């Protein structure tokens, strides 16, 4: 598998070399914007804006129309799926904890587009987007949220524990940061196997303050494991603002502690995410070790469907929803680029809505897990 891939990889690597020169490298820190500032909005916006402006060039190259359309489809699929789960949660068809990914779709879409089907991903409590982007079956996902026997976990796990061996999806996680050490093991596995497989590990800003973040990145770095650490900095950990919780101004800077590349990207732009992750993936496949990518993004809603998010500045949320909506923006861009027509998008939307509705139907019609089987199984644990 890695044979000819390697040469191709090197070529692509060269091609996109000049992108993302906002890398943080060990010897030479060079970070965009985000100076210490009292106004956090400005703090954030500036750093993202700079990245976008500086890297205009990549827009004209690389991605084929088909790739772009696939990205758009994934983004819309995640959005529609999440909107549906929120509705279903509010009418108590889904219960327990549900953490919607609305607003962050471009991160999962862009990142997963940069890996292959046989690569692994490690996900979080806000994990639906990751699963969908990795190619999960909406039916089995929705069935899991309904607690049904046909769900990915046979109804045992629910939203926070969706996992699938086939898919290389090593699990959502109810523990913040809980997946980070697991990514190290997946990384060892990829490395020992020696076939160029990589692991993509998602987590958000809050997780970067937990000890496991540090242990995991250090260990991955020491052993040059092929793991790509994608931090979805959505600015909050429940009510805790990243400005108050992360002592350094940009999470990507923490790469310095592990002597690995640290990159900041605009998480509302799937192509920017894609190229940054692709570069890290190629690096990883060539045995050069892990990277840390900080995707600046935003959780459009509260922490969960019933959280009014009163701790946030309304203007801040408004800004992101109007200016940084990955669905709206990417649609507009692809129309602008004449990659798709409005009609094609409408068709796509319809098809996706159908798929989502089908998943609900599937979930509703699926059987409950068998209590007898469960009791029998438990007697053996």
């Amino acid at each position: 598998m890695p044979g000819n891939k390697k040469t191709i990889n090197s070529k692509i690597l060269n091609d996109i070399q000049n992108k993302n020169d906002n890398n943080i490298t060990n010897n030479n820190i060079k970070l965009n914007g985000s100076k210490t500032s009292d106004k956090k909005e400005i703090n954030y916006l500036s750093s993202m804006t700079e990245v976008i402006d500086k890297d205009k060039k990549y827009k004209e190259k690389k991605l084929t129309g088909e790739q772009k359309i696939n990205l758009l489809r994934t983004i819309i699929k995640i959005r529609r799926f999440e909107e549906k789960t929120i509705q279903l949660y509010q009418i108590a068809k889904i219960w327990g904890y549900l953490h919607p990914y609305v607003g962050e779709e471009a991160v999962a879409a862009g990142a997963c587009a940069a890996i292959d089907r046989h690569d692994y991903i490690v996900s979080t409590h806000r994990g639906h987007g990751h699963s969908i982007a990795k190619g999960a079956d909406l039916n089995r996902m929705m069935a899991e949220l309904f607690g049904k026997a046909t769900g990915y976990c046979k109804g045992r796990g629910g939203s926070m524990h969706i996992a699938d061996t086939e898919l290389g999806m090593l699990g959502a996680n109810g523990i913040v940061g809980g997946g980070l050490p697991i990514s190290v093991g997946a990384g060892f596995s990829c490395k020992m196997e020696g076939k160029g497989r990589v692991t993509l590990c998602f987590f958000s800003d809050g997780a970067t303050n937990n000890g496991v973040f540090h242990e995991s990145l250090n260990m991955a770095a020491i052993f040059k494991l092929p793991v790509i650490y994608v931090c979805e900095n959505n600015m909050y950990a429940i009510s805790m603002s990243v400005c108050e919780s992360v002592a350094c101004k940009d999470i990507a800077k923490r790469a310095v502690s592990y002597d690995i590349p640290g990159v900041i990207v605009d998480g509302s732009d799937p192509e920017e995410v894609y190229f940054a992750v692709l570069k890290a993936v190629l690096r990883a496949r060539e045995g050069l070790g892990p990277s840390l990518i900080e995707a600046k993004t935003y959780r459009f809603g509260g922490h969960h469907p019933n959280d009014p998010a009163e701790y946030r500045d309304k203007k801040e949320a408004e800004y992101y929803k109007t200016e940084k909506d990955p669905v709206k923006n990417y649609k507009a861009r692809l129309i602008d680029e004449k990659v798709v027509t409005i009609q094609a998008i409408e068709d796509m939307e319809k098809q996706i809505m159908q798929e989502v509705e089908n998943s609900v139907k599937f979930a509703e019609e699926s059987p409950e897990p068998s209590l007898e089987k469960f009791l029998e199984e438990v007697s053996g644990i």
Partner: protein
Amino acid sequence: MREIEYREAIREAVIEEMNRDPKVFLIGEDIGKYGGAFRAYKGLLDMFGPERVINTPISESAIIGAGIGAAVTGYRPIAEIMFIDFTTLAMDQIVNQAAKIRYMTGDNLRCPLVIRTQGGAGRGVAAQHSQSLEAWFYHIPGLKVAMPSTPYDVKGLLKTAIRDDNVVMFIEHKMIYLLKGPVPEEEYTIPFGVADIKREGSDVTIFAYSNMIYKALEAAGQLEKEGINVEVFDPRTLVPLDEEALINSVKKTNHLVVVSEACERGSVASDIAVKITAKAFDYLDAPVKIVAGLNTPIPYNSTLEQASIPHAKDIVKAVKEII
């Protein structure tokens, strides 16, 4: 008497103790503006300011460590771990540091630290948010373990915990924060190691704690209709344990059922059962019966989740088996 919610009783206890003693402070995740995951600290940030209501990053070890370091230097912190499941991220600090520091330094350092947390199943939040892990802390010398079931108890015990010079694991239950009960306006505290008979009876003693008290009371109601008179015994603190009161209850009823929501294997229920079997052997008309959770990670599916924890019907069945 006025009735207030369990979480409101917690809030009152904290406010009273913070007003009484400037050394008391709060530390934990989302306890600022958000008021805590179950809103027990609503408004406290405004009342006491960010120096005494310390909102932290997701750093469970550092939260407990912060409590220990402040405690050994003269403060009386209340550190919060949002779910008992997350104590797994701070076990070194809880068990190797906090619990032992007084004893392994020959009483040179003291650690008046309260660790507030909550556990239990019933909300469909699955295997990593539903555990009952009190057996771990019960097993570790140097930790007191309080598991209050009512608004009255939670207020009185929390005030005692805050004034205690040792480490207290203060374990609440996620299903009862909104439950209302009588709480006097006047100040009161409840000493540790003093049980409360939640219902008097003469035929059988049901030992239960935390949310299981309500299952026991429900079972008692059902059994009454069948002419079985049940005593519901709430230890309120597992460490120290009011063994004397329990033995006295058993002397009266000659039957004991021990209930725990936790997984049956290695649960606190076994330990209580063994102790009472040894110490009240002559008063027992039948072997002590245990009712506990299944040995399984709590499943998400509601039917399976409910099947994993004890209910009134299980207690009724157990009582009938020994009576």
